[in-house]
């Protein structure tokens, strides 16, 4: 083992928990380099929206466009969309632009502010060439719509294409969602339970730390976190901040916060706070019972990770004793929503139940496992396999004791692609 290589490796391991690369720019769309196709011709005038979302907040000043023809006057316009659940809301448009070469960079005047998760679209306005695409590159694809999309539309109203739409922009990142707590809240549950969450944020660094917390209520599609009911925090160096989410989000109304998911957003390049969240049942004089919930970083993908991306499967195991505990399944999607197939398997590999589910972007819900599997009870120590076919999500199983109402959570972990 050579020392130099070892030091570099360790640096990446140790930095990862807290620090973002300060100079990592935000991107939106896809730049395949050498496109090998053109978009589908849904109509002479059509709008293609790339499903490769903005990786952070930022201000875009120029866009790189690959076009199949050249010398096309007023050939296209650009539109930026905000995804709220499955709704695409046009936020800013620029153009029309004329095509002067197959690869061109157009300036946006004025620049366009985008939020993490926003999408970029291109509208073909003249019958001269078309947007280029590429297959065989990593991409979420694009959606093509008839005509110019100038009002709200949905992701299911267009035609989905699994090829990269060759429009791309990059800019310095300003803010981004660093991590989420998939399930927090203050809510009265079944069997007399009263779940609460205590939240502590620690700034272990020598600099002031700022950011936002956004509560995403259960069952309600959300837009980017900067449009939620954000709570801004500012933590001096070396200090901690203790927060009652009920106080900061609903003014302390007992039990009114409900169940939800919490996003932690920080300025790009700034360390994120150490988040210590305890979710517990508060039985008053009879004590509390709960667990520390670890935040999930959005980049926690890959084998063993907690974010299951398209093409990956995650696994969890049902409780050992289903007579003493109840089992709920929670799903939190991200900027691209999620389509998933869930299966309950026994040890012989028999599929005992299957469900296919769609979740809008930035959506969170928790259901009892039987309802999740459409009425099929989940037995003890069964394997639950979650396969995500589109978007990405965190999926967890919450085991709650029937007497003490003590909750605890295991995450579905991404399995290796092959052993």
């Amino acid at each position, binding site marked *: 083992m050579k020392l130099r290589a070892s030091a570099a490796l360790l640096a990446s391991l140790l930095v990862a928990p807290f620090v973002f690369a300060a100079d990592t720019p935000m991107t939106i769309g896809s730049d395949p380099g050498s496109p090998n196709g053109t978009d589908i011709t849904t109509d002479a005038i059509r709008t293609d929206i790339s499903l490769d979302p903005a990786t952070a907040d930022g201000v875009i000043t120029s866009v790189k466009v690959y076009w199949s023809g050249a010398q096309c006057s007023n050939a296209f316009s650009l539109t930026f969309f905000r995804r709220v659940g499955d709704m695409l809301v046009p936020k800013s448009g620029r153009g029309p632009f004329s095509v002067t070469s197959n690869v061109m960079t157009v300036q946006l005047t004025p620049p366009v502010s985008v939020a993490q998760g926003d999408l970029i679209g291109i509208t073909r306005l003249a019958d001269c060439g078309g947007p280029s695409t590429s297959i065989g590159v990593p991409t979420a694809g694009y959606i093509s719509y008839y005509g110019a999309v100038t009002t709200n539309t949905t992701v299911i109203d267009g035609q989905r294409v699994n090829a990269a739409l060759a429009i791309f922009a990059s800019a310095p990142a300003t803010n981004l969602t660093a991590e989420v707590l998939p399930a927090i809240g203050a809510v009265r549950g079944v069997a007399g339970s009263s779940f609460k969450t205590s939240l502590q944020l620690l700034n272990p660094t020598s600099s002031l730390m700022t950011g936002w917390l956004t509560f995403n209520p259960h069952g309600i599609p959300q837009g980017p976190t900067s449009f939620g009911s954000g709570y801004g925090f500012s933590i001096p160096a070396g200090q901690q901040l203790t927060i009652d989410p009920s106080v900061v989000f609903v003014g302390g109304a007992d039990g009114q916060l409900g169940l939800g998911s919490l996003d932690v957003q920080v300025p790009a390049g700034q360390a994120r706070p150490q988040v*210590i969240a305890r979710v517990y049942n508060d039985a008053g004089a009879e004590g*509390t019972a709960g667990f520390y919930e670890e935040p999930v970083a959005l980049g926690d993908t890959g084998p063993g990770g907690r974010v299951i991306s398209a093409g990956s499967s995650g696994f969890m195991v049902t409780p050992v004793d289903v007579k003493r505990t109840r089992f709920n399944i929670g799903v939190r999607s991200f900027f691209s929503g999620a389509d998933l197939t869930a299966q309950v398997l026994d040890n012989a590999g028999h599929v005992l139940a299957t469900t296919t589910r769609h979740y809008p972007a930035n959506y969170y819900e928790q259901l009892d496992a039987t309802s999740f599997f459409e009425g099929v009870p989940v037995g003890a120590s069964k394997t639950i396999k979650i396969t995500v076919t589109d978007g990405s999500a965190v999926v967890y199983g919450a085991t709650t004791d029937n007497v003490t109402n003590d909750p605890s959570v295991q995450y579905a972990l991404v399995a290796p692609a092959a052993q």
Partner: protein
Amino acid sequence: MKGSVVFLCLMIAAAPAVFGQALTVGVDVGSPNSSDTAIAATRTDISLDNPATATGTITSVKVYWSSAPCANAFKIKFFRRVGDNLTLVAERGPFSSTGSSNTIAMTPAVAVLQGDLIGVARVADCGNPGTLFGIVDAGYLVYAGDVTGTVAVADGTRAGSPISLSGSGTATESLAAVLPAVGSVTGTFGSSFKTSLQLLNPGPGVTAMSGRLVFHKAGVAGASTDTSLPYSIPGGQALTLPDLGAAMGVTGLGSLDMIIPSGGGKPQIVARVYNDAGTSGTAGFFEDPILPADANGRIVSMGATAFMLAPVDPARTRLNIGVRTLYSGALITAQLLDNAGHVLASASKHYSANYFEQVDATGFFGGVPVGASQIIKISVSDGSAIIYGSTTDNVTNDPSVQYAIVAFAIL
């Protein structure tokens, strides 16, 4: 924070090798710029850098020697660390130096256990091992004479720079995960803690995952001979141990290692630690296993500083602090801070290799009570450890755990 810190530690850097077939021990510094500490003409240097990354056999050793040729100049030695003692388990040589960089075949190959250390004994008055002055790391220990038998770590002269001495070979098995705290134990307030364990082989395919679970009892230096339980899980199946303590025939609090064959897969581990109040129900939490290459900052290595927070409501809960070391033991300084940065308590502690203990926070800090939401800062100056805070409700005896998370490391 970025830019103001420099990271260097060999323990974790070596960790990703656990799933590979290669086995390494010690470090090759490339271009040494200094000699070892000459405490005696005949002396033994034992590298503390990069303990054997797996169990297996060492077939080749590379050592830098300052002079050549030197006839029968050095021996290569391998030591096993149990607690704070080092026991010679094999040696080869003497060997003659033929140049500054000497690569030597081990004949026969040397069987080592994960965590074993490599040493070199200077046995002729000609040349010496090379070191890299200016790099601070785990370094090496120097003993007078040609060490045989057992020596104490504390009896050696510590040098804080790497010695250019490394071995390589073939791995057979390695540590895949640690559950820092498991057990079957009766605690305070009438609590009865248990651990259920589920191991899932998600496949794909039917290839079985096999390995063994090793229980290290709290308060005792862990050893490879500690109580273990083999397992083999066919593809697509889950193995459930409703009561881990009963399945392994152990009682009390301890720490669990998962050892897997080299190249084998690691099952998904679902461990629930809970208080079992019988008809009054259970209360507990799912405990995340810690991987040797933990990417979430839960292994605090030499030079690193980690943090955790005291509970929000100490009137309703009690806080215990647990420490589990790995193959090099750990030397830590813990501080209790308020929000103004005042140091309310400080404690320096030494833990031997593969050791685990959990104590109440007040005892941990020498009798100073820990207040609500106070900051616990842990700096590791030697070795590495997993450190956690266990919050337990005083009425329900419900336990839950937060790990100390690495914030930065300063060299």
